[in-house]
């Protein structure tokens, strides 16, 4: 089956601002334009992947992702996940997935107490059988930018240990020659992204959709997204 057979939906909340970027990236990599689904919808047509994009859903008011997580469409996303459907949340999307309870932990304000936008180097950890890491070798390194104010992953020690033991840590920030600390936000155990216990739900702070060609600074995001799409189709 070719990638263009894959049905992808991108959920759009008021204040989402990476929805178009993700749509463009997926269309380029898969050859088919994903559907944009407005948050007021209450159902989701059958899809192979639901993506919650980055941005400032509801202005990031109250807590990042909190208001979006209670939006009408999220029932349908929860149902989709409960059936084993794949869900990917990027940046604000990751925050939404945590607020919706699809992934454990919370994302709190960056340790530097400032918004940070720059490249980071992340390493594939993997371990769980997840479509989001399956096509990437453990230890594979990628340059992917972050842009957020609340990317500091926090969970209790037991939860962190469980994530570690279950192989649910998908990506970690690692040292590189990029100016500034490897971990841009103080995240516990340098966590950049995690997956659910069954590997089908993934959230990450870095933006792969912004790193899809050398001209944009890196094409590693394209590698990562393509690997995920391929794993989902097979």
């Amino acid at each position, binding site marked *: 089956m070719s990638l263009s057979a894959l049905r992808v939906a991108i959920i759009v909340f*008021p204040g989402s601002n*990476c929805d178009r*970027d993700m749509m463009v990236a997926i269309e380029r990599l898969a050859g088919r334009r994903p559907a944009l689904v407005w948050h007021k919808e209450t159902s989701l047509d059958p899809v192979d992947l639901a993506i919650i994009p980055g941005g400032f859903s509801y202005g*990031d008011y109250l807590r990042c992702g909190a208001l979006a997580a209670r939006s009408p469409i999220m029932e349908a996303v929860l149902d989709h996940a409960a059936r084993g459907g794949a869900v990917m949340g990027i940046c604000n999307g990751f925050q939404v997935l945590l607020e919706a309870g699809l992934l454990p932990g919370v994302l709190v304000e960056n340790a530097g107490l400032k*918004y940070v936008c720059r490249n980071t180097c992340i390493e594939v950890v993997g371990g769980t059988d997840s479509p989001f890491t399956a096509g990437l070798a453990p230890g594979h390194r990628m340059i992917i930018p972050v842009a957020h104010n609340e990317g500091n992953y926090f969970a209790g020690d037991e939860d962190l240990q469980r994530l570690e033991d279950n192989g649910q840590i998908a990506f970690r920030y690692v040292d590189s020659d990029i100016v500034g600390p490897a971990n841009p936000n103080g995240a516990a155990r340098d966590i950049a992204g995690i997956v659910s216990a069954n590997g089908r739900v993934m959230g990450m702070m870095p933006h792969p959709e912004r790193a899809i060609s050398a001209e944009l600074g890196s094409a590693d995001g394209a590698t990562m997204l393509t690997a995920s799409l391929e794993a989902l189709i097979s």
Partner: protein
Amino acid sequence: MSDIMTAPHQDPAMTFENAASMGLSREEWDLILTRLGRTPNLCELGIFSAMWSEHCSYKSSKKWLKTLPTEGPQVIQGPGENAGAVDIGDGLAAIFKIESHNHPSFIEPYQGAATGVGGILRDVFTMGARPVALLNALRFGAADHEKTRHLLSGVVSGIGGYGNCIGIPTIGGEVNFDASYNGNILVNAMAIGLANSDRIFRSAATGPGNPVIYVGAKTGRDGIHGATMASAEFSDETESKRPTVQVGDPFTGKLLMEACLELMASDSVLAIQDMGAAGLTSSSVEMASKGGLGMEMDLDLVPAREDGMSAYELMLSESQERMLMVLKPDATDTARQIFEKWDLDFMPIGKVTETGRLVLLKDGDVACDIPLAPLVDDAPEYDRPQAEMAKRPTLASADITDGRPVTEVLAELLGSVDLASRRWIYEQYDSQVMADTIAPPGGDAGLVRIHGSRRGLAASTDCTPRYVEADPRTGGAQAVAESWRNLSAIGARGLAITNNLNFGNPERPEILTQMAQSVLGMGDAARALDTPVVSGNVSLYNETDGSAILPCPVIGMVGTIEDIGAAVGMAPTAGMALVVIGQTAETDDGWLGVSLYARNLAGSPDAAPPPVDLQAERRNGLFVQQQIADGLITAAHDISDGGLAVAVAEMCIAGRIGAQVALPDGGNRHGWAFGEDQARYIVATSDAGALLAEAKAAGVPAAAIGSTRDAGELQFGDENAISLEDLSNLVEATIPALMSGG
């Protein structure tokens, strides 16, 4: 003065004292009485004072602004609309403008800066353009001044707070520090958008009878002129101290932007105007007067956030995220649906009329009825006097230099706040959202890809206030030239500019001279470089305790590059020759007058700034653009603050590569290294011979001065080499140390 006719509504009739407290002069007050044929009421007087304020009427600057070149084959819309528009080919227009938010940012740095960004974005999407890039130009007081840290951190997080949330990348800007800004910082924000060139929206109202629609957020009492509100005699209700700063809501701003763009894609909008300074007043007056028509509005219909708002308050509120539109008569339902989908207020509040008057109803009564013509056409225009300026002497390098090694001075300059890395600032801005950013902040110009194409849009903001102070005409021209150079250095061709004139009190002749002469210089340069002025903004009275800021006419230039793949950065690779463009091999001294060297190391001796040769700027810039397009130049950086040595060091730091640079045999070593002669670039090439031959053929001075090398050290002649890592740490440490109080 007797009432010829009673003013409408129950509002008290005004006196000259009232007018004076709103900033109007005796002559202006008399003019209002004559034009109106009676005394105005509070609401009417408020409208006059707002429309005749310096901000809306440009009364002190108009005479000079008129001298600027505003036309050219590329210009679709010059000054006069919400933003300027230039043709960038492929049926597209770049729409852009810069605007100041200096005073609010000093009072409340976060909100002041945030609403500055929000305001300039509205100016751009009002014209039907989707914003694609933001830039800014900032001036703070001395780095060690007690307020600087607080103001800088607030302004930067405010700019980021709005731009990041609404999802427009910030791709460039500039920051200077000088004690003259201790009590009056400058916060200028620029936005660039893209639209189809045949789908540009303007503000002139058309079609009497057509509905006037209010959309966006509700109106509150924020931003109403503080001085006016404090005067108890204007209002019988006891005023608590109302905030005079507005609070931005980027979330609503984003919804408003999406809703407006969605509506504009349908065929519904006849005219549209954002509510910026003086809110509903300036938007309604401008729309009606530009259309040569009148307008009638029922203020009871204006969506209000608070109860009991008076006509005066409703008309002068500067609440954010609001727009006024004239729709086609049958389009109201379509429009309403769109705004409701985005959870925004949508309210028909009036209609276009043929009367040439602004008529406002409140509580079923007439609250204002004034002819529009005087508000706009009779707005005062002043020809204020200038002062004689003594010509400054040319400084001899030998008078201020010593024999210290170049690298030692270099380290000192690079560690200063003037040249230190701005990373701490620009990493707080989302520079990559929209996934089209080719060159984020950190290089000479920002560059975004025109979505879905191979072409790029480049932009830079620039001004060197110390040059403007020393010689306004040269300084005005230099600001344009530096922007042009910053674009050329990445391979882009400047197309047009916007400007933000930040000066002190124009009623002082020496300040008027600064403004007038720098505008003339700006015009000279804009003509020579074919970069007409398409929009701009004026901010005067930037003073504290009678001392003015260093004059700061900021230029924002926008240009294009045909193939983003051909654009270069300033990072050279190993084994490259370094060539200086704009200077010959024989040059062994440079212009230190008013340089950063003179200012930071020699106590700013009185001197003339480097002259600006516009023909050389043009020729050298076009040459660099061409050689970048042809691939002969692989990295480039313009020479500006700090001169040649600083430019080379910045390239080495960017490329993480060392270099060996030859020193001239004679002349003045520091003058050569740190002089700020204009129209120059350092470029890297793998074929110096070919590049020098091209330069010779084009009549462009050029000389090979050295080459990059892997050793990780920068060396001038046989002086001690300096480690690149040390230089890099130096440059990166300064602002973080300043901001952490170190």
